[in-house]
């Protein structure tokens, strides 16, 4: 009977993890390539302050002044990214409202294959409150040998000024925002 109980736990766990986590198991990320990605420092002062960035040039992900960075790889053309946008906005709100997460987790979005104009269309349509970056040249594709599906979510530990390390990767819809927030609360950043 103990075996039966264990099996129940296993099934329950699998159900909670659902598709994204299972897929993430097959999704490998080249951290070196991830650390080489470069984006323009946002012109918007509020976004610069949010990410703790200064200057007018480019930055790499380890420059973001935060222990945990939550990255959404999206496309304005992706219907799932569109339908999930309100949920991801909700995640941002929950993080900002949480005393433990507010200064611990920051969010950014990377519009794979999207021009700055296309990213702006997405931002305006869904009133995205966190910084979004254009990746017109598909440079994000270099972080994995597998094709990057959208949306893909990366949870990164930031070793300030040095490197980011991948803690988790989720592909597809996030079924449980509350569960994700709980996980982020338990995640220790450097």
């Amino acid at each position, binding site marked *: 009977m103990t075996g039966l109980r264990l099996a129940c736990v296993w*099934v329950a766990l699998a159900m909670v993890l*659902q598709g994204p986590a299972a897929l993430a198991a097959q999704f490998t990320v080249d951290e070196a390539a991830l650390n080489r990605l470069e984006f323009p420092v946002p012109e918007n002062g509020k976004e610069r302050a949010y990410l703790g960035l200064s200057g007018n040039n480019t930055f790499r992900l380890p420059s973001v002044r935060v222990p945990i960075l939550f990255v959404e790889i999206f496309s304005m053309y992706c219907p799932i990214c569109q339908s999930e946008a309100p949920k991801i906005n909700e995640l941002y709100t929950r993080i900002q409202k949480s005393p433990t997460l507010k200064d611990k987790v920051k969010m950014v979005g990377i519009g794979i294959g999207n021009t700055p104009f296309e990213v702006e269309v997405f931002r305006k349509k869904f009133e995205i409150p966190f910084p979004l970056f254009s990746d017109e040249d598909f440079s994000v594709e270099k972080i994995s040998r597998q094709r990057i599906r959208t949306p893909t979510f990366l949870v990164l530990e930031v070793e300030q000024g040095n490197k980011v390390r991948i803690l988790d990767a989720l592909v597809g819809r996030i079924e449980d925002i509350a569960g994700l927030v709980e996980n982020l609360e338990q995640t220790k950043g450097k």
Partner: protein
Amino acid sequence: MNRSYDRFRLFLFLAVAVVCVTLSAFPTSWAGSGVIYDPGGLKSIDSRTTLKVGDEAPDFELKDLSGNTVTLSSFRGKKNVVLSFVPAAWTPVCSRQWPGYNIARDYFENHDAVVIGISVDNVPTLHAWVTEMGGLWFPVVSDFWPHGAVAKKYGILRSDGTSERALFVVDKKGTIRYTDVHDINKMPKLEHLIKALEKLDK
């Protein structure tokens, strides 16, 4: 006997569990569920249109997904029209292009423009595809029969019976003001289309 029955039940339970986990490994979204057919890299352009900016746009009448007839000339004097030909339903770039236009509705309407999506697929296929997209604000019409007749009129029917990925902007006088017969494998940049619409305002 009881013990072996328990083992059998445990085996059965685990078997069901494995199936559950395998199923849950498939994302709920269509993008990753295998319903999109990827034809791989195709010849970028496989036709030659003779239409150019300044020509009168060939008129057409096609049925939309509600069974209504959409006639290009009915927009004359009323709306600018963006004709968006896509090669085939359920293929990678096409399945994203119209959802992109779907969230850019304001950009089209700001320039008094409507979009007409055109595909050589039949109505039931297009119905299923557009429903899976979550619906679109603009009409989608079927150029299935006579097969690809409108695509042929526009000089963009490919040798395999699909159409090119092509955009034509037609002004309120029925004149073509912008053409983009695009590499079939790539997404046309939205701003190029919007800039073409901006020029109509001047």
